[in-house]
């Protein structure tokens, strides 16, 4: 591989390609493992309510292995552009990846074998990896200039990450040594902090930067961004305090309403901005973005209904499905579909031919197959849990696995095409 002018430049805000791509590559592999595990234990899905089990392993393969992994890789590369500050240490970014990968593998193995001590060690190693990442994130944000809405969301995500680590550590300790708190309340606080707090705030914050860039439209004004952030942060604080003080369902209802207000304050201005785009064609990846927004709203409606006393027996897995694969995974995959070829095209630079076009690095049929399979799997899983149909759950997870394999093929194809583009003569400027 030909070293580009970025190599070895400490001031550069563009990381070596191997850094974000190792995170994205790991996310691709963990997604396959998560769907595989889910397919093998699909019969337990409708009754899942946490606790050491293969499904807890599958959940963390998605949350830590795919979502956090992608969030780390994407934010390490994209926040320096938004904040105009380089990453403090590339070595630390690599160390965080090693720790996170090792932690996720150990945690999933422990959960698969119903072995809390192994889960505890895995959680601890993953926490160390995320702590290194949190330091890198905080260092970058501390010196940030520009894009204040993005930076404000990232600060909330950083605080939520620290609380996620603390609650995760308490849960891991509880599984090994016994719980001193209400396990379900602590687990809900942990899920809220991780999903809506850390990953959610990064997803919403980076959207103000990424979606206008992808759609070539103006970014929504900062007022709605701050309103959304304020409502979301308040909702998260209310859930955590409410759960830890065992205050009952009242605070959960208030938090769900605030969450809905936050989500609408984000989605509506974003949709209005998208309508003002300057490039008429909108990438098909926006279908996944829009589905993810619908799932975010649905997760909050289910949370509100549950707080109001909706006695549906499978509300917990339904809520989890809407939140994790529905909102966060769909959004992550939509973003990955665009930033993987985009970053690869930037890294093709230095060969004397200008950056290779992202479209020439992208296999649209593979992405179309992935989108169809992912959405089909999601719909199947929601229906299977809602109606408690085991065969449908198993079929849906197999479709999800096929989707994950299609996504992996897309990722490998980008890397292969990039290598080919770097070794072939320029094809630009067709002769008249």
């Amino acid at each position, binding site marked *: 591989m030909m070293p580009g002018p970025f190599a070895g430049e400490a001031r550069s805000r563009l990381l070596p390609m191997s850094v974000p791509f190792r995170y994205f590559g790991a996310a691709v592999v963990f997604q396959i493992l998560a769907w595989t595990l889910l397919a093998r234990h699909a019969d337990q899905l409708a009754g899942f309510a946490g606790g050491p089990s293969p499904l807890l392993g599958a959940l963390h393969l998605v949350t830590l292995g795919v979502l956090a992994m992608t969030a780390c890789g994407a934010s390490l590369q994209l926040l320096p552009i938004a904040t*105009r500050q380089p990453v403090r240490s590339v070595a630390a970014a690599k160390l965080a990846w090693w720790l996170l990968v090792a932690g996720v593998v150990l945690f999933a193995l422990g959960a698969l074998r119903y072995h809390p001590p192994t889960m505890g060690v895995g959680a601890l190693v993953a926490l160390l990896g995320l702590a290194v990442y949190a330091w890198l994130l905080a260092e970058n944000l501390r010196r940030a200039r*520009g894009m204040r809405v993005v930076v404000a969301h990232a600060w909330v995500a950083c605080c939520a990450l620290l609380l996620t680590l603390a609650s995760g550590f308490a849960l891991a300790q509880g599984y090994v040594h016994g719980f001193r708190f209400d396990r379900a309340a602590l687990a809900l606080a942990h899920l809220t902090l991780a999903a809506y707090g850390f990953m959610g705030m990064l997803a919403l914050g980076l959207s103000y930067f990424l979606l206008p860039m992808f759609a070539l439209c103006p970014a929504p004004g900062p007022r709605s961004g701050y309103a959304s952030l304020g409502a979301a942060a308040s909702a998260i604080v209310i859930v955590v305090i409410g759960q830890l003080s065992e205050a009952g369902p009242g605070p959960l209802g208030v938090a769900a309403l605030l969450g809905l207000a936050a989500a609408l304050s984000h989605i509506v201005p974003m949709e209005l901005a998208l309508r003002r785009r300057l490039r*008429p064609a909108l990438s098909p990846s926006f279908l996944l973005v829009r589905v993810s927004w619908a799932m975010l709203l649905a997760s909050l409606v289910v949370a509100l209904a549950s707080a109001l006393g909706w006695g549906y027996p499978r509300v917990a897995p339904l809520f989890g499905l809407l939140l994790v694969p529905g909102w966060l995974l769909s959004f992550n995959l939509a973003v990955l579909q665009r930033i993987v070829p985009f970053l690869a*095209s930037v890294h093709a*630079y230095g060969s004397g*031919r*200008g950056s290779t076009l992202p*479209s020439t690095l992208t296999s649209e049929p593979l992405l179309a197959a992935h989108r169809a399979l992912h959405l089909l799997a999601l719909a199947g899983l929601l229906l299977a849990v809602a109606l408690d149909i085991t065969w449908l759950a198993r079929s849906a997870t197999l479709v999800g696995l096929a989707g994950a394999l299609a996504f992996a093929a897309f990722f490998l194809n980008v890397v292969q095409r990039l290598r080919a583009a770097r070794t072939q003569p320029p094809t630009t400027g067709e002769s008249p």
Partner: protein
Amino acid sequence: MSHARQICRRLHEEHLGTLDLWGKIEQACGARTRPESELVALLRRGAAEAALELERHFAFEEAELFPRLAEAGEADIASLLEEEHGTIRDAARGFIELARGIGEGEAPPPPLRRLALELAERLFAHVQKEEMALLPLLDDLLDEATDESLVMIYSGN
């Protein structure tokens, strides 16, 4: 995004104009129902823009802005954008030649459509990078006096 410096606002407005025109060209090249005469008119506008405005924009950035970026330790971004200028110029040359060769009442040949689509995508990607990385950096780097002198230079005074 609002920019603190006049020169950034000026470049941003030109980016919007480029996106608007090439967005229409991209859409027209992909649409089968549009009258060919409309597409030909758009392609000719694109060729005129590429020959004059785009070249002026690029030359100014290369002469006045990229060296300042390099001095400020952002040589990587400057050289990436300059390399893209070269690629866009290559594609634009072929496009302009083909667009100027269309006779009255003739349909645009397929190679011209392909080249127009390629140029549109290259311009979209380039504008994305300049909006994302170049203009915010210039907002930070330039002081008021330099900003004013750059606006004068760009205006040709």
